């Protein structure tokens, strides 16, 4: 296993190189001078010498290929540069933001798994029932609702009208005075709406996938033969069918990560959630190129590792997949 992980990590290196290359060149193809954002600041006249100094500081005075080599070398050393806007190392900003995004995405995945898998199972087992129809249609509908609109409407109803949940932010103002459990509850309370918006659409797709997958498995001959051997229906579904149906779900969750991160970009902006998605949106609107390159790269890196993790889990739970990565039958 150790060797396998090492091998996969080594394989990821060219991919990562590709990612940072693409990011660099897209951002550097941008029209306009990155330093223009300083001219935008509402600060009156700016000393051209100061701009020149900043240009040197960010290495923008050098030819593009030198900048590229430096960028790659710096990323390899874990140095993602300094944000134009915040004037702080991007790695610090990311270190502050990523935990928030992880809270959001991980809880969204948990919610997704709880609702999605459960509903998927129920609707597959009770195929053609009213519940099944509600789940299949409902999941399609919920999946189609744009997250930002849902978020706005939920804020309108549950935060402003009913006052059940906070409109935004991660903690209450009196957070410092709360007991430990109070703090945990407070954080969760603030997570309810964003996690729901992010998780529910994802759960809808999981429910559909789970249902179809389980139906497929239930049609498999080994499920039929398990029934023919006289096992109880519950045993057949839980022991024989479900485990088989769950294995591919792992890959689905690996693939979901980029969608969740993308969704988080909008949701975080609406809920003033200080995560990576919001940072990316801010970097885009503020043309904060170092921050932009770093957040996008980080998003891609997280995706790569998410997939890697999914693959490893797959190898671990599915006996048919060997470390050589070939699926056998």
């Amino acid at each position, binding site marked *: 296993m150790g060797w396998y992980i090492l091998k996969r990590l080594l394989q990821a290196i060219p991919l990562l190189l590709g990612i940072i290359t693409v990011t660099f060149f897209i951002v550097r193809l941008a029209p306009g001078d990155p330093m223009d954002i*300083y001219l935008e*600041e509402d600060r009156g006249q700016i000393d051209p010498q100061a701009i020149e100094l900043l240009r040197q500081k960010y290495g923008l005075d050098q030819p593009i290929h030198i900048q590229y080599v430096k960028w790659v070398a710096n990323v390899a050393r874990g140095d993602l540069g300094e944000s134009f806007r915040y004037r702080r190392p991007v790695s610090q900003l990311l270190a502050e933001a990523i935990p928030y995004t992880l809270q959001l995405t991980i809880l969204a995945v948990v919610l997704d798994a709880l609702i999605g898998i459960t509903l998927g199972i129920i609707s597959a087992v009770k195929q053609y029932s009213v519940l099944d129809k509600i789940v299949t249609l409902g999941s399609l509908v919920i999946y189609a609702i744009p997250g930002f609109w849902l978020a706005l409407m939920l804020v309108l109803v549950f935060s402003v009208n009913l006052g059940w949940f906070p409109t935004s932010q*991660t903690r209450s*103002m009196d957070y410092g005075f709360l007991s430990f459990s109070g703090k945990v509850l407070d954080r969760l309370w603030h997570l309810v709406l964003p996690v729901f918006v992010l998780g529910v659409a994802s759960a809808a797709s999981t429910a559909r996938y789970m249902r179809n997958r389980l139906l497929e498995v239930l049609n498999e001959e080994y499920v039929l033969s398990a029934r023919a051997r006289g096992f109880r229906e519950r045993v057949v579904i839980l022991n024989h069918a479900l485990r088989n149906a769950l294995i591919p779900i792992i890959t689905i969750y690996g693939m979901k990560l980029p969608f969740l991160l993308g969704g988080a970009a909008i949701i975080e902006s609406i809920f*003033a959630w200080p995560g990576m998605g919001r940072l990316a949106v801010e970097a885009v609107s503020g043309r904060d190129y170092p921050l932009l390159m770093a957040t996008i790269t980080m998003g891609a890196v997280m995706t790569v590792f998410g997939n890697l993790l999914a693959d490893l889990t797959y190898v671990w739970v599915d006996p048919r997949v060997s470390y050589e990565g070939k699926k056998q039958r």
Partner: protein
Amino acid sequence: MNYLPPGSYSMTDTSLHTSVPRTTLRRAALALSCLLALANVSCSPSSDRAPAQGSSITLLKSSRIDERTWSAFGGFGQYLVFLRLFRKDETDEQQPRLAERWEHSPDYRTWTFHLRRDVRWHDGVPTTAHDVKFTLELLAHPAVLHPSAFVLNIESITVLDDFTLTITYTRPMSLESGSIAFYPKHLLEDLDPSEFFSWDFWTDPVGNGPYRYVRHVPKTMMEFEANPDFYKGKPKIERLVLKFGPDAGLLELLSGNVDIVGIHPSQIPGLGEDPRFRVYYSESNITWAHGIFWNQRHPLFRDAVVRRALTLAINRRELLQVLNYSPDLPIFDVIYTRRQYLQRQLPEPLPYDPELAKQLLEAAGWQDEDGDGVRERAGAEARFTLIAHRGGTFLGERAAVYVQDQLRRVGIRMDVQILDGSVMTERVRFAGEFDAAFYRTPRAAYRMLRWNLFGEGSRMGYHNPELVRLLREAVDMGADPEVEDRIYRELWDIFRADLPITFIRTQIGHVVAHRRIRGLSSPWRAEPNMNMEDLWLEDVP
């Protein structure tokens, strides 16, 4: 960094800003009050407020600001904690702050400041001239390159004694740019300047201003209490909370979570007729005049008569109201000095007169011959593209929508392209790639010269040597207010004749505050900084 200088303020009824038809408003208000009644009931026990100790108010800041960036980047928040040398008051006079008095050399290049002797840092150490010198040098340090330092133009600083220092500038300076707050040398001198923006100092600062730091919750809030040792005496409001909220502060305000919000004018109608709040606007940051820059290389705008017609065709009064600006703001066609604006000594603007505009256009040869609603001359359509900023403080999108419709009525077809800030800057100021642009010009002569708006090689195709000469004169002699006013009055004639820019508005900040907060006024004409120590609370029935 937020554009909104929560200034202060006499009361303006919110209804002044929201001229929505009454029936709608009533319906909306009814719905809203139902909603809010619900909100109050269910919210109060678990309210977002921390336990109150004495009088306390909460201010909302955009969450782009957090406990680390709130002061390191300047912005109004830091003046709660850190003092400046001086600030401007209602009458546009410099008011002593950290500096007790000051004098300048005849050429306005060297200034000597005498500091108060009774100002202490919150840890008890006296604030001295060394702190001032240290701060100025720190901000300009090559490893820091603080944005504020870009505008300092300092040649040298000399500390004469603990409470006196002289600053020599590279060019004549007025006292206008006094936005820098000073930091304690004894706490900061050993820190690494290259990590300036990451210092932990900013999250629990030690200052010398009216309020002192109590605690913070990461990414959420920062709490301050009144400084009993403040040189003017303990401020009346005992506790202040800076909440780092979302950009759209309206929901927070209406949910009762905050008391003061700097607000984007587009959100003002969202307040409806909520009786709890008042809208204030601040006229202090009038450094900029926004308007439509006509690129005179475009055939349509080459003719001053056409520019006049276009100006006449736009109902600027209504436009200001569409932008949710107060209706009593002046409309102007010229560049002005600060005093001229604040004292409303501006020349009469061109009126809104679409009929005259049409006549002028006809006379200039622009006629709609094919009856498609768009004029043409010699086969060329009267058509152009206006570029404007996306979102933000420029209100470009909104103004453009309105202007587009106004010009359509006089037979001019205007397309709109919305661009990001840096692209706008590039195209308007450096490349000159635009037909017309919704942009802004600085008010100060030396900046206009630096921008080269009207000189040789002007990016808007408008070269007027006389105008440039007057601007140069204003730079050389304008440190004297009387002279500056006189030179500007000479500029007016040129602007009114040539109309290179159709001005729409100046930059105004809007603030919404709860009625119990007193001491605010509108228009607030002093500096764009909260004079928190002068405010007080009064219970409202």
